[in-house]
């Protein structure tokens, strides 16, 4: 179906300006479209949109918890009176900082502070205010877990309640180095281990911890990028499997130790060795014979593994090992061709999703019957457009979605999917930059509200951008 023919179905042109778009929505009375264009409406239009959106208590309650409700609509909701909305709005992940601040100052609900302490958009001064004034342990613990909490908040908590929240603070990504030192010196082994595992850990603590014999401490320590060579050597003999496994991932591991760990009796140690990119050929050969299938799988995925070893692993009895080879970025095309006829579909699917294939190989995989393989073919940029045009009509919705995900699928391939029975596919296309706004405009009367919302949200986003859709102007001319 050509884009032109498809367009001839459309009776109207997509509104060009924000104002025209909102006017269309107001005329249609579409509730979800109204939520989508709220952000681009002028004051007068906005008032009319809100009349539509907030006409019943039922609708208002629904909007306050709907996962797609935009921030500006939530803000308008928060200002409605006599509605049990505050908690819903403050819980909503789309709610913006200023709305949250407003809620905090307006509402008397004691539960709100706890919810604000957890919200990623709560403004920094407000978080600080909670850290300074609040006494509720649950609220403060939540605050210490909030990824948006800034160093001052953590510092304040550590000061006001020594030890109480140290575990949470030590696990927070924003904790500064000096505070880590404080926590380390007053902490138990768990706090200390968390401090040592932290990316801001001061060097001096690492030195101190090196003398420890506590397993938990050493496990954390062994992941630190700078360790004295002697300690690396000692730890390679440590009886704790986790310590040796972590050691086997270290970039600075001397070859002699790598060779020793490749023979370690613990599976997880050898698995870690199999992932190393500095393995000499002899060790690769050795690991390719390992009895643990996970060792062979990790080796199969290792980008430094040579052709010969890959060839050997491609014959492995374990399906996941053969799949690993097919997923190796350096798997030669001849080997991929062989794996493309593997008797297990999950191995063939690995080939179908490979970026290093030929359109010829894709054509042969397209004759497969397994949905995983066909989905891979549908999503693969090397698949010929003619083939994609056929897959668009697959019975399997996963295969059709594969085409939507295909970076090389152009509008001529995608257009028929605007009629796809599965709403999610229409949602994806409504926000796909590959289709023109005019093509998408046919979704304006879609029976599924989520599709209409996605369309109008996309169009509203466009209206906010300075350069209008080129395609549109070409049409108009």
């Amino acid at each position: 179906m050509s884009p032109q023919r498809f367009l001839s179905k459309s009776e109207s042109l997509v509104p060009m300006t924000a104002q025209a778009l909102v006017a269309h929505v107001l005329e249609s009375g579409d509730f979800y479209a109204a939520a989508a264009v709220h952000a681009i409406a002028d004051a007068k239009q906005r008032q009319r949109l809100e009349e539509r959106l907030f006409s019943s208590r039922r609708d208002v309650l629904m909007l306050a918890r709907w996962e797609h409700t935009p921030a500006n609509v939530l803000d308008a909701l928060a200002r409605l009176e006599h509605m049990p909305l505050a908690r819903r709005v403050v819980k909503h992940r789309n709610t913006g900082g200023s709305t949250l601040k407003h809620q905090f100052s307006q509402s008397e609900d004691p539960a709100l502070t706890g919810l604000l302490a957890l919200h990623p958009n709560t403004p920094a001064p407000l978080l600080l205010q909670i850290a300074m004034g609040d006494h509720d342990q649950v609220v403060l613990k939540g605050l210490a877990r909030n990824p948006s909490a800034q160093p001052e908040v953590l510092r304040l908590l550590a000061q006001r309640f020594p030890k109480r929240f140290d575990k949470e603070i030590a696990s927070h990504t924003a904790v500064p180095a000096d505070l880590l030192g404080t926590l380390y010196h007053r902490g138990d082994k768990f706090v200390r281990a968390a401090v040592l595992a932290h990316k801001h850990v001061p060097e001096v603590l690492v030195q101190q911890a090196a003398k420890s014999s506590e397993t938990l401490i050493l496990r954390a320590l062994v992941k630190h990028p700078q360790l004295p060579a002697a300690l690396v050597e000692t730890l390679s003999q440590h009886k704790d499997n986790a310590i040796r496994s972590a050691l086997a991932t270290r970039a600075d591991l001397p070859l002699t130790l790598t060779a020793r760990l490749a023979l370690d009796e613990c599976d997880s140690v050898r698995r870690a060795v199999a992932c190393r990119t500095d393995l000499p050929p002899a060790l690769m050969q050795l690991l390719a014979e390992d009895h643990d299938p996970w060792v062979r799988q990790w080796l199969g995925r290792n980008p430094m593994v040579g052709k010969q070893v890959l060839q050997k692993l491609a014959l492995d009895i374990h399906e996941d090992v053969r799949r690993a080879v097919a997923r190796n970025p350096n798997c030669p095309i001849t080997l991929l061709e062989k794996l493309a006829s593997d008797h297990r579909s999950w191995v063939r699917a690995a080939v179908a999703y490979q970026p290093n294939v030929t359109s010829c190989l894709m054509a042969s995989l397209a004759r497969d019957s397994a949905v995983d393989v066909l989905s891979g073919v549908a999503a693969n940029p090397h698949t010929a457009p003619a083939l994609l045009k056929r897959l668009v009509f697959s019975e399997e919705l996963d295969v059709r979605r594969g085409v939507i995900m295909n970076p090389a699928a152009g509008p001529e391939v995608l257009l028929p999917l605007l009629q796809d029975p599965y709403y999610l596919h229409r949602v994806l296309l409504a926000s796909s930059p590959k289709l023109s706004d005019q093509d998408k405009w046919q979704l304006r009367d879609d029976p599924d509200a989520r599709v209409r919302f996605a369309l109008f949200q996309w169009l509203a986003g466009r209206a906010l951008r300075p350069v209008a859709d080129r395609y549109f102007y070409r049409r108009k001319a």
Partner: protein
Amino acid sequence: MNTILVVAEHRRGEVRPVTLELISAAQQLKTAADDRVLLAIVGQEAESLASQLQWAGVDEIIACKTGSAEFEPELAEQAVSALIVSRKPIAVLLPHSVDTLGYATAVAVKGGYGYATDVFKLGYDTGALVATRGGYNQKVNVEVDFPGFACVVMTVRGGAFKPVETAGAPMLTVDDRSELTARSRPLEFIEQGGGGDIDITTVEFIMSIGRGIGEEANVEDFRELADNIDATLCCSRPIADAGWLPKSRQVGQSGKVVSACKLYVAMGISGSIQHMAGMKHVNTIIAVNTDPGASIFTIAKYGIVADIFEIHEELQAQLA
């Protein structure tokens, strides 16, 4: 003197453990010392199965012999209905199970008894029997009573009552119902799974990953972890769309509903409606997420606020 009738459940020659929970639930309905608890067992081998029912708190075991060794809904219904008529219990307790789903309603409807299913709390309020069950997908507790009913049939949720632990020596009565007929015939049992891809609708322990996983190598890391703890690795849509896990492992609206799952470890899944549609019913959900306010925590039983990669590393270390 009141009578409480409990119906035991059995399959392939074994009494199912939920029966022991019903025996202790029945004790809560006793109001006087001389109240009696009857334990019925229905089937061709009812008499020999009675040897597995020697528990304290049971006054009498009634072995209802029918023509079918395994459960058949019409035979069970007729046998239990006949017992209600002859023994006049004030309450009949059945497990809320696949078998009773097939006949408990028929017993209540045909006999005109009070009826409630999936009850997890029992008691009396000023003499009236009160049962508590869940409503609105377990979001509320609903207390129901049964005014005007001399007998109430209830199916009881598994795990709601502590199983009886003390042995007893109840008397045994045989009730021969081998003349009963039915219009369905149980045939063979079939074990699911084995061979081919795993059917995630039948597995009980699942670990699941979502969009936050980032790249394919991380998927493999979690697959290895799942392997180590004997869980099946499942995913939300973006992972299957990327071809990183088979479509058959996708949980949610465009994937599958993991109906048999009992333990679900959600790694970095925020809880979109799409995904939750496939797993929100699971009894024990453990959610790991960096956002302490993520909606997944509203349906989870346990929550861990943490980075999934750190948790992964730590789990692997502790399991090594």
